[in-house]
């Protein structure tokens, strides 16, 4: 009886083995796995990374060849290690460490021993290389920059890390990937696609022939060059104006949403983040906690917008019909917006201001009263505030603008929920009155303010600001052709623009007149605080200006933001006017103003909180 069982077991096991083999050989034998076999050598053909030009086709970023010293651990004679390490200028201990690391990856496959050897070093090493087995040189290329600007905008490339190798099947150890900025957001465009050829190896790791006549091979797809929207001349000029000042300049072409300049100060040389010293340099930049060069203020900095925000309240007031152009409010060097709560204003006592007046004198009272009316126009403050918020967010505030750079911040526009949580439901317009003048809870990023200026210039619409104008043989994201409308009617912009022209003509920014060009703008002076050793301290106000020119047919919208620069008039407005003049006339005639800005130095202001226990602000 059991001999039958014996036979049955033999048959069952055989059938199971056949099923497993059927699975292995017929069902699950997809080719991608077959190509992972140790017996197949893959040879890659890398496309050269795409170049970056500016809007006028000036070359900004390109590539320069360099060399990697490769090692095949199996072929290294340990007796050579001392002389090898001498030749390539590393300690023999370091060499052995690298050798072991390479060995861990593979004993027979090449790994990088030293990356980023320059042409000169290459010539030196090349001469002696023949003496040692197991070493060879591989040619590669690295990023090279024609202009030392907009480093955070372009970002940098570096070798893929283990996580990226594991999660993205495209990348292999030692390949480069865009890490930040446009290098990251346009990685696929700038990278192209590497080609691969498969070869049959023998056990001595020699290539015998093409694998299966190359049916699995793929061709390299070349990378595409891109044109950025920047005007590199304007960008570099902006850099020079920002010398010794921290802050940012953003210029946008209102009709297209193309960003003409994105200046971050302090800046740094982009070539610091290329090649062998990248990680050291990166750490040094990262350690600068005062200047924070890696912090792209224009996109990531969230600041109170100050008086520039008055404009939006005026627009909402007009749209909501709570004020008209002719509406007059009384200002008595400020006003009581609630019992025992006085908001100061720098206007004279007993003045009666209309809208135009209020804009060019930047009267706090006028906009506080307007804001109050907007909120109180509705049954409850909650409904009013949320309506107000709808208007504000339609300008792109409080959210990402959708630009093609991987970093950014939303800013903050408070909602009724926020105040309900904060004040336990007992609050009204006057509680949140600071929103009217761009202080309080509101936070915006400079690019949002620049976009705001562009919206005013366009009288009510904008295209998402963006950094790439053209991609070679390709089109840019169609979102960057789409017009986005705000909730404000076009007609309400006219009195506002008139007021903004008067700001420069006879108001707070008279020092920024440009001969032959009508600049419209609004200054802002934003109070700000930091915490030092746990204590909240007020610092000198931020100097802000938004504007556009020429006012009749705007070609450039600008936001300038100078950290701790005090009045908007002092730094931001003149810088904006210079930028506008430079862009529109390609030449600056007001040399006295230019020199004043170029020589302006705020370094001492920035050091104050770190040097003194007590310090005066707003000098």
């Amino acid at each position, binding site marked *: 009886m059991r*001999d039958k069982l*014996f*036979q049955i077991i033999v*048959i069952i096991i*055989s059938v199971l083995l056949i099923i497993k*083999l059927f699975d292995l050989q017929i069902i699950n034998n997809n080719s991608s796995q077959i190509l992972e*076999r140790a017996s197949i050598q893959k040879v890659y053909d890398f496309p050269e990374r795409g170049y970056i030009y500016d809007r006028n086709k000036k070359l900004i970023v390109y590539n320069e060849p360099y060399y990697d010293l490769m090692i095949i651990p199996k072929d290294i004679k340990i007796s050579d290690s001392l002389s090898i390490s001498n030749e390539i200028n590393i300690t023999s201990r370091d060499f052995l460490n690298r050798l072991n690391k390479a060995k861990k990856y593979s004993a027979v496959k090449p790994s990088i021993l030293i990356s980023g050897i320059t042409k000169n070093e290459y010539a030196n090493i090349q001469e002696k290389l023949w003496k040692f087995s197991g070493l060879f040189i591989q040619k590669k290329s690295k990023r090279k920059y024609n202009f030392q600007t907009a480093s955070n905008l372009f970002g940098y490339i570096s070798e893929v890390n283990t996580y990226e190798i594991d999660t993205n099947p495209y990348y292999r150890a030692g390949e480069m990937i865009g890490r930040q900025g446009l290098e990251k957001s346009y990685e696929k465009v700038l990278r192209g696609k590497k080609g691969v050829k498969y070869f049959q190896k023998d056990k001595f790791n020699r290539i015998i022939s093409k694998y299966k006549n190359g049916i699995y091979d793929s061709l390299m797809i070349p990378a595409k060059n891109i044109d950025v929207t920047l005007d590199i001349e304007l960008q570099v000029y902006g850099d020079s104006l920002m010398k010794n000042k921290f802050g940012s300049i953003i210029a946008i072409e209102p009709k297209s949403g193309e960003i003409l300049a994105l200046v971050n100060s302090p800046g740094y040389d982009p070539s610091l983040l290329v090649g062998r010293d990248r990680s050291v340099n990166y750490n040094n930049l990262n350690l600068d906690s005062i200047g924070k060069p890696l912090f792209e203020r224009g996109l990531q900095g969230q600041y109170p917008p100050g008086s520039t925000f008055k404009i939006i309240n005026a627009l909402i007031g007009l749209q909501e019909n709570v004020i008209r152009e002719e509406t007059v409010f009384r200002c008595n060097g400020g006003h009581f917006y609630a019992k025992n709560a006085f908001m100061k204003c720098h206007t004279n006592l007993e003045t009666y201001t209309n809208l135009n007046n209020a804009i060019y004198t930047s009267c706090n009272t006028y906009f506080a009263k307007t804001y109050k009316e907007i909120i109180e126009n509705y049954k409850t403050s909650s409904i009013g505030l949320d309506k107000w918020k709808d208007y504000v967010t339609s300008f792109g505030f409080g959210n990402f603008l959708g630009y093609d750079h991987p970093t950014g911040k939303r800013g903050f526009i408070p909602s009724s929920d926020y105040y309900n949580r904060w004040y336990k439901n007992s609050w009204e317009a006057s509680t949140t009155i600071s929103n009217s003048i761009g202080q309080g809870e509101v936070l915006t990023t400079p690019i949002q303010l620049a976009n705001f200026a562009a919206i005013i210039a366009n009288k009510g619409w904008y295209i998402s600001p963006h950094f790439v104008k053209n991609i070679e043989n390709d089109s840019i994201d169609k979102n960057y052709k789409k017009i986005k409308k705000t909730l404000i009617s076009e007609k309400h912009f006219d009195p506002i623009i008139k007021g903004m022209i008067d700001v420069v003509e006879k108001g707070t920014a008279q020092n920024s007149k440009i001969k032959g060009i009508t600049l419209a703008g609004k200054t802002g002076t934003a109070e700000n605080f930091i915490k030092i050793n746990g204590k909240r301290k007020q610092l000198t106000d931020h100097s802000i200006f938004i504007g556009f020119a020429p006012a009749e047919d705007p070609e450039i919208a600008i936001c300038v933001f100078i950290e701790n620069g005090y009045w908007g008039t002092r730094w931001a407005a003149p810088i904006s006017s210079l930028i506008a003049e430079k862009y529109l006339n390609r030449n600056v005639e007001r040399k006295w103003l230019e020199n004043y800005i170029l020589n302006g130095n705020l370094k001492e202001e920035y050091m104050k909180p770190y040097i003194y226990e007590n310090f005066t602000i707003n000098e």
Partner: protein
Amino acid sequence: MNSLNIKKFDFVSISIVSLLIMIGLVNIYSSTYFDNMSFFSFKNPFGKQLIFTLISLIIFLFILVSDDRFFFRYSSIIYLIGIILLIAVLIFGNEVKGAKSWFSLMGFSLQPSEFMKPITALALAKYLSNINSDLKRKSIQLYSFLIVLIPIFLIIIQPDPGTALIYFSFFFVLYVIGLPSTYMNIFIWLTILFITTIVVGKQNILFIISTLIISILLIYIYRKLSFRKFLFYGILSLIFILCVDFIFNEVFEQRHRDRFDIVLGIKEDNRGIGYNTNQSQLAFKSGGFFGEGFLKGTQTKGDFVPEQHSDYIFATIGEEWGFFGSILTIILFTILILRMISRANTNRNIFNKIVIYSVASIFFFQFAINISMVIGVFPTVGIPLPFISYGGSSLLASIILFGGYIKLDSVKKEKW
């Protein structure tokens, strides 16, 4: 007196084995091939194997013409010599890859543990063919076990657990010829426990739950199970679990643990310890249905599956001859083994019957474990594929086993 009866020889099996040896030679040639390789040379594996094939043929013919009663009469003495050789190899043997299992003789290496297989088969058959040997009796069981366990013990301490594992095929023979089913039940039960212990590991809660589920299943299957027996099984299981946990974690080295972990899917490591299995599986995949062709296997040619001419030769077959080749090999083995069993059933000579069962069982174990290992469903152990894998001792031992089968199969009557 001479029982040479050519007509009664199982020529079908002889043809199958000849075919298997040919398959072996072709694939050994392919997997060790290099340019300008000379055909007959002691220096390359193919030449050596060819010479061993000729020697095997001589030995095979010698067995066929010898008197079948010789095996019966002298099996005890041969067994003793075999045991002495196994002890001697521990003292005088050559250490290869950490195991003392080889004698070196005039450039040839011989592995006594291979030859001990037919010897043990003879000894066991002789002991059990005695009219008084009733496997229902505990003492008989004990002695039968000892006959098998002594070589197992000597081989394990070489250490060569792979070869030792094959000796467990004798327990299967004992079961087939009438060992009480209790042993088999215990064995199956322990195997299940072993695997669950390793898979579930130290997560005790999960472990207890799975144990309970299996226990309930067992009670359901053996409804007649008395409480005493149930208690016995329970205590045995508990001790076994503790032992497995202890042995697995304390006695096994990491490399052994890794092998189990990879087969059971606990761990994946295609570069290190799992490299063999992974590359071997890739060889099968690239073989597809018809294979890459003789001398064209990319894995084979590059020598990327270690031991590809010996233990992993089946990977070469799978790559160069495809699903077609691997299936043919499996079918040939299956027919051979099934044929041996069915012919043993009609043999009225108990001794011959037991020897043939043993031969069939040994071939079956080796074939099943080797192929399972190569296709990655069994941990890596050093077990060659009979007739096909490179290796003189393995081929000789297989031929002796097979010769024994052909000879004893041709004698169906009780003559003494």
